[in-house]
């Protein structure tokens, strides 16, 4: 039966080319937008190398300190992480890295701007970078403050053209580093690993970074298991409750190890400084926005479908007169609509591929590597089916209620 429905559906769709085209354009456009949005979310939040263990990584991104007249929010300081976040139960490793800052270099009289990030050696163990040449710097090199650097592919090209870079020197921000490794580019939206140049923490020009509770550092905690997250948070909270401020102006300090998604949700929903983060609210917001966006295309499609049905009133009348039940007709129409939606979905997939390529091309998001993967593909397909069913139900119901006699006459109501 389903097969007959399918062939019938395709035939019906081919008969009314203009209508089918208009519906397809609508469906296709809607799904392109949703697919691109999904690909962007996937690009930012899904576990891609180097963040392959994202599911059991927590990070301390920011601290909020408040006193009687002011409130300050900033990234964590090294002292806070070093003194209070080490050796938390259930944590396999702690990596500390600075936020990336821009630095200038001069190559053959040309100004090159790069992001530079200072990290410890555990950074390379918590994250799994893809090394094209050489390798990361080790604990010893961090301790000795060796002037070594890991750079990304694009930086290698900017400094040395296509030639290998390991063993050669680069100058950045007035410091000279020897390149020990070259990694594949990491997109800027992967905020945790992203940079152009990574150098040891200890190569900072001044020693002030060691002393602050606030500063410009992030701490990455690799847990043994997701299930340990609450225990880790609780232990960290009880430790920072004992911080000695040595300063009467600060009364409270709040810092919570968050997942990446929870951190982004804090930033977007202004939940900074609240102890609990509510990532589910951001998820709900995103889903809500997606839903709102789908309302107009769905109503549009419903209207087109209603027209199509009214046009086919005589056919429906005949089928009813010959004893087809309402449910059969509803089923037939839904199949027709879902076929249309899935066709639109496939078209959208091809179109989304080009849109994503175009976004990559513009360079709006440095090193972005937007692509469609099976996850996004399946999601898009499911969405297409849902879209087809939702926009088909009401017209199908209306159709099934057509009175056979009236329908045969070309029912207008």
């Amino acid at each position, binding site marked *: 039966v389903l097969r007959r429905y399918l062939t019938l559906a395709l035939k019906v769709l081919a008969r009314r080319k*203009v*209508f089918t085209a*208009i519906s397809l*354009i*609508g469906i296709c*456009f*809607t799904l392109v*937008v949703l697919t691109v949005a999904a690909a962007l979310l996937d690009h930012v939040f899904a576990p891609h190398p180097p963040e392959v263990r994202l599911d059991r990584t927590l990070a301390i991104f920011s601290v909020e*300190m408040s006193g*009687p*007249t*002011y*409130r*300050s929010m*900033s990234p964590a300081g090294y*002292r806070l992480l070093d003194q209070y976040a080490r050796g938390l139960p259930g944590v396999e490793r702690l990596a500390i890295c600075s936020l990336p*800052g*821009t*630095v*200038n270099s*001069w190559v053959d009289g040309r*100004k090159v701007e790069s992001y530079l990030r200072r990290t410890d050696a555990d950074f390379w163990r918590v994250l799994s970078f893809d090394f094209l040449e050489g390798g990361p710097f080790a604990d010893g090199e961090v301790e000795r403050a060796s002037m070594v650097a890991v750079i990304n592919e694009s930086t290698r090209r900017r400094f040395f053209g296509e030639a290998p870079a390991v063993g050669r020197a680069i100058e950045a*921000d*007035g410091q000279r580093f020897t390149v020990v490794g070259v990694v594949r580019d990491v997109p800027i939206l992967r905020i945790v690993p992203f940079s152009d140049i990574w150098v040891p923490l200890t190569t*900072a*020009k*001044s*020693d*002030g970074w060691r*002393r*602050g*509770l*606030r500063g410009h550092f992030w701490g990455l905690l690799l847990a043994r298991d997701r299930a340990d997250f609450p225990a880790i948070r609780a232990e960290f909270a009880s430790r920072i409750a004992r911080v000695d*401020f*040595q*300063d009467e*102006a*600060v009364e409270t300090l709040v810092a919570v190890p968050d997942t990446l998604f929870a951190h982004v949700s804090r930033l977007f929903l202004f939940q900074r400084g609240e102890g609990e983060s509510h990532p589910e609210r951001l998820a709900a917001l995103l889903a809500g926005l997606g839903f709102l*966006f789908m*309302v*107009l*295309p769905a*109503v*549009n*499609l*419903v*209207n*087109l479908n*209603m*027209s*199509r049905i*009214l*046009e086919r009133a005589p056919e429906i009348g005949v089928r009813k007169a010959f004893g087809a039940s309402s449910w059969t007709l509803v089923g037939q129409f839904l199949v027709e609509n879902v076929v249309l939606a899935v066709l639109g979905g496939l078209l959208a997939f091809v179109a989304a591929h080009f849109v994503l390529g175009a976004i990559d091309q513009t360079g*709006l998001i440095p090193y972005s590597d937007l692509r469609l993967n099976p996850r996004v593909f399946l999601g898009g397909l499911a969405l297409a089916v849902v879209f087809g069913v939702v926009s088909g139900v*009401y017209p199908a119901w*209306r159709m099934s209620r057509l009175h056979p006699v009236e329908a045969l006459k*070309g029912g*207008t*109501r």
Partner: protein
Amino acid sequence: VIRHALRLIWNRKRANLMLMVEILVSFLVLFAVATLGVFYADGYRRPLGYEWENVWSVDVEQNATERSSERPAGPTDAGDAEAAETLRQVLLAARSFPGVVRVAAAFPGPWSDAQMVRQDERGGRRLDYRVATADDGLADVLGLRLTAGRWFSAEDDGATWTPVVVNERLAQEVFGGEDPLGQRLNGEREPDGQPAREELRVVGVVDEYRPDGEYGASVSFAFTRGHADNPASNAARSLLVRVAPGTGAQTQEKLAARLQAVARDWSFRVTPLAEVRASANRLRLAPVVAVGLVAASLMLMVALGLSGVVWQSVTRRRSEIGLRRAQGATAGQIQAQVLLEIGLLSSVALAVGIALLVQVPLLGIVDWLGARVYLADLFVSAAAILGLALLSGLYPSFIAARISPVEALRYE
């Protein structure tokens, strides 16, 4: 004629209801996007209150101690003597650098990632406003326009209170129509009930200051006086340097190198405000452009869908139209009838939409847009949707007008 058209619409109320829902929803979408557009256009039009051309920002990271960085510093804080000497050398080097016209300090500077918000209580009312610590030279370097009073100067040196310069928005908010000069800005007590730790007294008013740039909102803002040569003052963290027009990127690097040579274990970052502004604006505009593109495509889709539906209804009503033609209606009258129907349908939907939006003072949107702009925005969006609906009815109406009575009647 209109009554007749209304009756026709009423006859097919179910199908038309869905069409009206579609028109209503597209109106709401267009209105939302138009409001966003108006907000940005309006922001771009209004003055920033400062001049960013030929100004470079120099971020200074001292080899600082914990204490000085953990506390909002006042002018009385005694800095570490060694740091003070280094800072003096740095300022000297910057001022005497060829191409540099004037050096001032302000933290956070324009477009800075950092934000400082002060929370005061005044007359039982909570008062939140953005602040920056600025030194005596800032008004010159940024070209701030004072509308009353004066900028900070050596006159303030002996004062027992902290001098502040506010923007007109903050002055209006706190003092209403009163003259703010010489008045106390913060209340006697902190929000938590403690006695106030310092007294802020207004010495001047600038017309406008929008630290987040053209696409940021207007905020209530106050500058407090700080000193670029006091290492404990926030002002010393961020210098603003006015350079001679045409000073290039090479000089940036040389300036950074020169400062580095003076203070070996500090770090400096020299960036023209023009660059900071460009990247901040790009970041703010990208989502708006994306939303605009999506909305434009949505409208196109609605237009296509509507014209498909109208077309369909025209073909289905061939016999009715043929009959009218046979009774002597002209092609023009038929076309007008089709357009009238879709026009009426949209008008009803739009009336509902406008009635909805007028009721809801959307999240204070009316406040910052102003009632006139809000209404204009409302009617322009409505007119645009009406135009869109008529446009999508145009082609089907041609088809309807071309129906020949003979053929149509025989078709039945």
